[in-house]
C-alpha cells in the first residue's frame, strides 16, 4: 500500500513539474509575443511620427506658397474674395442709393475724422469685378461639370457597345468566322480619353449610341434568320450523312446495289450541294455584312475621339 502511495506522489510531483514547465514555457512564449507586439507598436509610433514630420515639412507655408504661385497661378487670399452677408446687404443698399458708404468702423467722433477723409468710391457690382487671381472662373466650373457629363456619356456608350460586340462575336462564331481579328475592343476607353472637345465628344457618343443600337437590331434579326437557315442545313447534312453511311455499309457488305440506290445517292449528293450552297446563303452573307458594318462603325467611333484628345 505504501508503495502505491509513494508511486502516486512521485507521479503527482512529476505531473506538477511537467505542468509547471509547460506553463512557464507558455508564459515565456506569450511574453515574447507581447514584447514583439510592443516593439511593433513602438515602431509604428516612430514611423507615424516620421511621417507626420515629413507631412509637416512638405506643408511648410513657404513651400506651399511657392508652389501655389508658380504652378497654380494663385496669390494670397484678399479680403475682396471673401463675401459676407453684410456685403450682400451693402450691395443692395448701394444699388438703391441709400447705403452707408462711409467707413462705418471709424471711432466715436467720426464727424471730426471726415475732414480729411476720402469718400470711398461706390461699390462696383461684384459680377463685373475683374479678378484675375480668383481660383476658378465660372466658365471653368461649367467646363468641369460638362467634361464630367461627357465622361459619363462616353462610359455609358462604351457600356452599351459591350453587349453588341459580344453579340456580333457570338453570331460570327456560330458562322465560323473570327470576328475579333482586325480590331480590338478599344471602345471602353473612349470616354475617359476625350474630355477636351466636349461638344464633339458628346455628339460622337450620341452617334455611336444610335448607330450601335441600329446595328444590334439588324444583327440580331439577321442572326435569327440565319440560325433557322443553319438548322435546315444541319438537318439536311445529317440526313445526307446517314444516307451515305447506309450506302457505304451496304457496299461494304458486298451486296449488289439495288436500283433504288443510285437515286438515294443522287438525293444525298443534292443535299450535300445544298449544304455547300448554304455558305453563300443570304443569312450567312447578312451576318458577314453586319460584322463588316460593326467594324466600320468602330472605326468611325475612333475618329472623333482622337480629334478630341488632340485638342
Amino acid at each position, binding site marked *: 500500500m505504501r508503495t502505491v502511495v509513494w508511486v502516486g506522489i512521485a507521479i503527482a510531483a512529476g505531473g506538477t513539474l511537467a505542468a509547471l514547465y509547460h506553463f*512557464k514555457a507558455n508564459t515565456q512564449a506569450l*511574453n515574447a509575443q507581447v514584447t514583439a507586439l510592443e516593439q511593433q507598436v513602438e515602431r509604428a509610433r*516612430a514611423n507615424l511620427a516620421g511621417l507626420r*514630420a515629413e507631412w509637416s515639412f512638405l506643408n511648410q507655408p513657404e513651400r506651399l506658397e511657392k508652389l501655389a504661385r508658380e504652378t497654380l497661378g494663385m496669390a494670397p487670399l*484678399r479680403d475682396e474674395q*471673401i463675401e459676407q452677408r453684410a456685403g450682400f446687404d451693402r450691395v443692395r443698399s448701394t444699388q438703391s442709393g441709400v447705403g452707408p458708404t462711409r467707413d*462705418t468702423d471709424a471711432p466715436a467722433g467720426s464727424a471730426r475724422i471726415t475732414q480729411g477723409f476720402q469718400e470711398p468710391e461706390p461699390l462696383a457690382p461684384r459680377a463685373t*469685378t475683374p479678378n484675375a487671381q480668383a481660383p476658378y472662373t465660372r466658365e471653368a466650373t461649367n467646363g468641369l461639370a460638362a467634361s464630367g457629363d461627357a465622361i459619363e456619356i462616353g462610359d455609358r456608350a462604351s457600356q452599351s457597345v459591350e453587349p453588341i460586340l459580344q453579340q456580333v462575336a457570338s453570331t460570327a462564331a456560330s458562322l465560323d468566322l473570327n470576328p475579333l481579328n482586325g480590331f480590338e475592343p478599344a471602345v471602353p476607353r473612349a470616354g475617359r480619353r476625350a474630355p477636351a472637345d466636349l461638344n464633339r465628344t458628346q455628339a460622337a457618343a450620341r452617334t455611336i449610341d444610335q448607330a450601335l443600337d441600329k446595328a444590334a437590331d439588324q444583327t440580331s434579326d439577321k442572326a435569327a434568320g440565319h440560325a433557322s437557315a443553319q438548322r435546315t442545313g444541319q438537318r439536311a447534312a445529317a440526313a445526307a450523312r446517314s444516307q451515305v453511311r447506309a450506302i457505304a455499309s451496304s457496299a461494304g457488305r458486298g451486296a449488289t446495289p439495288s436500283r433504288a440506290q443510285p437515286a438515294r445517292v443522287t438525293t444525298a449528293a443534292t443535299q450535300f450541294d445544298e449544304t455547300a450552297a448554304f455558305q453563300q446563303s443570304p443569312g450567312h452573307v447578312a451576318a458577314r455584312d453586319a460584322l463588316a458594318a460593326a467594324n466600320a462603325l468602330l472605326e468611325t467611333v475612333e475618329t472623333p475621339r482622337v480629334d478630341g484628345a488632340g485638342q
Partner: protein
Amino acid sequence: MSWELEADAAERWSQSVTEPWMPRARQASLDDNLARRRHRVPARVLRRLAVLALVFVAAVGVIVWQLASLASVTITAGSMATARVVSPSIARPDVLDREGRLLATDLVYPSMFADPTKISDIDETALALAEHLPHRTPSEWREKLERDGSRFVWLQRALAPKLAQRLHDLGLPGINFREELRRVYPAGAAVSHVLGHVDIDNRGRSGIERHIQNEVGTENIEPPGRTTKAPVAISLDLAVQHAVRAELAQAMETYRARGAAGLVLSMGSGEVLAAVSLPVRDPFDADQKADPERMDRLQLGRYELGSVLKIFSVAATLESGLVTPRTRFDVSAPIQVGRTARIADAYPSPLPLTARQVLLRSSNIGTARMARLLGPEAVRNYYDRVGLFDALRTEVHDGLRTIEPQRWDDVHAMTAAFGHGISMTPLRFAASAATLLNRGRPVHPTFLKWHPSRRKPQVRPVVSPAVSEQLRSMLRENVLLEEGTANKAHVAGYDIGGKTGTAEMVVDGAYAKDRVLSSFVAILPSAEPRFLLLTMLFEPQGKPVSGAFEKPKRSAGHTAAPTTARIIERIAPILGVYKTVKVSPAG
C-alpha cells in the same frame, strides 16, 4: 533435466528483482533471501555507499536548483553592457501651433559608438569609417578611436538610417549602434526663434524647448521611444507667422534693410500670434546660433525705439488733466538742451500745434514741452505704470530689463518723451503699448495657446480708459488723415490706427544719422482693438530713387508704415477681420 534448469533460472531471477505482481508467499521468500544477503555486506561498505548516495543526491539537488533558478529568471535585452554606460534618451512632447500644425517632434535615429578595447585593427577601422563618413579624415577617426582607458566613445550621433545600416553591415568589431531620440523642426526656420533649441542629449536649452524642460517636463525612456505626454500647443499661428515673415522679407528687399522684426499680439489674451525676427536662424545650422545678426530681435535686442514712445508721453500729459487734446504747444523753435544737444523737428511748424497734432506730426519739440510741463517724476511714473521698466518674462525668454537714464532730470525726461535715452526690447514696448490701448488693462504677452482653464484674473486698469480711448482715436487719425505721419499705412476698409517711429541708431556711443531703426506700432481695429502689430525695419536705406536730387526716404512713415499695411492686408482675412468698405481692386 531441462525442466530443472528452467526452475533454477526462475528462482535466481526471482531473487534479484522485486515485482509487485508476485504472489505474496513468493515475495516473502524473496525478502528473506535479500535479508540474508544484506547480512553478508560489511557495514563500512554500506556507510561508504550512504555517503556516496548523499553526495550524489546533493549534486543532483544543486543541478535542479540551478536549472530552476535559471528557468525562473528571464534574460532581457536591458542587461546589455552599453545600456549602463549611456544616459537614457530624453523624450520631449511635440510642439504644435495654435491650429495643431506640427512644429517640433522627436524622431528615432541610430547613433554610432565604439568600444576601443574591442577594435582589432584600428587603421582599417579608421579607413572604413572615413570612407563612409568623409567629414573626418582617417587620422582624425584614428584619434577618436585611440582614447586610452575609455571603453565608450561616441563616434557619430544621429546618423541617417540607411547610412547606419551600411556601416553596420561592414561588421567592424568594437563599433556599435544605439537608437537615440533627435529633435526635428519640420516647420523649418519660420518659428526657430520662438522654439529655441535643444542640446545633443535632447535637453531644452532655450525658447519653448527650455520652457518644456523646466515646466512641462520630459520623460526618460529606455529603449528610446516617443513620450506619451500631451503635445504643447503654442500661441503662434503658422499661417500668420509665414505671412508676416514673407512681407517683412519683401520689405527688407524693397527698402534695402539689414534686418526686420514683426509681432502680432492678441490684445485680449496676450497671445503672440506671430513673432518674426529676420534674418532667421536655421534650427539645423549650429553656426547660426552664435551669429548676432540672427538673434531674436524681439526679445534679446534692446533698442531706442524713438517716436513710437510718444504715445506714452502724450497719454501721460492727457491723463494729468493739465491739457486736453486741443491744448496748443509752441513748436516754432528748437529747444537747446545743455551746450551741444538740440531738440528739433524734421518738419517744423511755425504755428502752435494742438496736443493731437503733436502726436500726428510726431513733433519732438511738442512732446519735450509736454514732458517739461509734467516734470521728470510724472513722466517716469507714467512709464512705470504701463510697465515699461519691467523685464518682460515670457515662456521663451526671461526678459531683459529696460535701460533707463541714470538720472531723471528735465533733459532726460524731455528726450525720453520722444523715445531717446531709453532702450527696451520690442516685445516689452509692445506689451506696454497694448496695455495703454487696451482700455488700460495690463496685457501680458504669452507664447502658449490660451486655454479656457487659464482664466485671466480681473485686473484694474492702470491707465484711464478715457485716455486710452482718446489715444486710439488719435492713432486712427494718424493713419486716416493726410496730415498724419502714418498715412501710408491706410488701407481702405480696415480700421487701422498706428504710430511711426524713426530712431537714429546708436553707433559707438553717438547717433548715426544714416542708420535708423524704423518702426510702426498699429492696432486693428482701432475702435475695438483686437490685435496689436509691431513692425520694425533695421537700417533701411529706403526705396532706390532715380533722380539725382531726390533722397531715398527711410523714415518709418515711408518704410515701416506701408509694410504694416501690406501685412495687415494679408493677415486680416486669416485673423477674421474683414473690410468694412470694399473697393474693387481695379477701381
